[in-house]
């Protein structure tokens, strides 16, 4: 059961030089399906792909270059797959339960299989919301 985002402590020793430990809040990754679900994940304190630097860069790139729908699907798919491959621990997936989901969404096509094949993912927890 995932109660909320986790925070990790980053820091340590390198080359005999002591660095002061720097506490960096790294939000736990979450995934979402269907409109309204991303907001739920963000409101619960998780990180979503669209909020990462890579996600924001991709949004800018798409806005500037206006690729086709198929290209945009592939772009988000590649990024989503990498994002899922880097996930750790219990992974929440927020889903809009009132409207269901389209069969060909980015999560189903790219991210879900990457999560299933990721040995560091210990659990995939579907969280249904009823907006």
């Amino acid at each position: 059961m995932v109660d909320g985002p986790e925070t990790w402590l980053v820091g340590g020793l390198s080359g005999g030089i002591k660095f002061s430990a720097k506490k960096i809040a790294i939000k736990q990754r979450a995934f979402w399906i269907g409109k309204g679900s991303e907001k739920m994940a963000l409101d619960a304190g998780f990180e979503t792909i669209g909020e990462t630097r890579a996600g924001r860069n991709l949004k800018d790139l798409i806005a500037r270059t206006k690729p086709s729908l198929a290209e945009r699907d592939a772009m988000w798919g590649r990024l989503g797959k990498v994002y899922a491959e880097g996930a750790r621990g219990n992974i929440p997936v927020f889903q809009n339960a009132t409207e269901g989901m389209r069969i060909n969404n980015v999560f189903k096509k790219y991210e879900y299989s990457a999560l299933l094949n990721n040995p560091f993912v210990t659990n995939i927890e579907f969280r249904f919301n009823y907006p």
Partner: protein
Amino acid sequence: MITLQKLKEFEQYEGRDDLYQLEDKFDEGIISSSEWTLITDLMGEVRLILNNLASEEYSKRIIEKLNRSCDGNGVVIEYFIKIANQNWI
């Protein structure tokens, strides 16, 4: 209210609400979240009629809903039906 501009936007995304969301369009774009739901629901209902799977009473109700929801212009309804016939719906 469903307009021609909104239908063209919906068509451009082939109904992919995930891509529309990923690109922040529900916040900045032409179609709001509730309008997207309305279009998607109506598309499904109109497809039932187009495929002769709906009763006469149901069809009448949906056509009334379509008339109420679309901008008072036959072109919009015509375009709506054209999209409802697409395979990606």
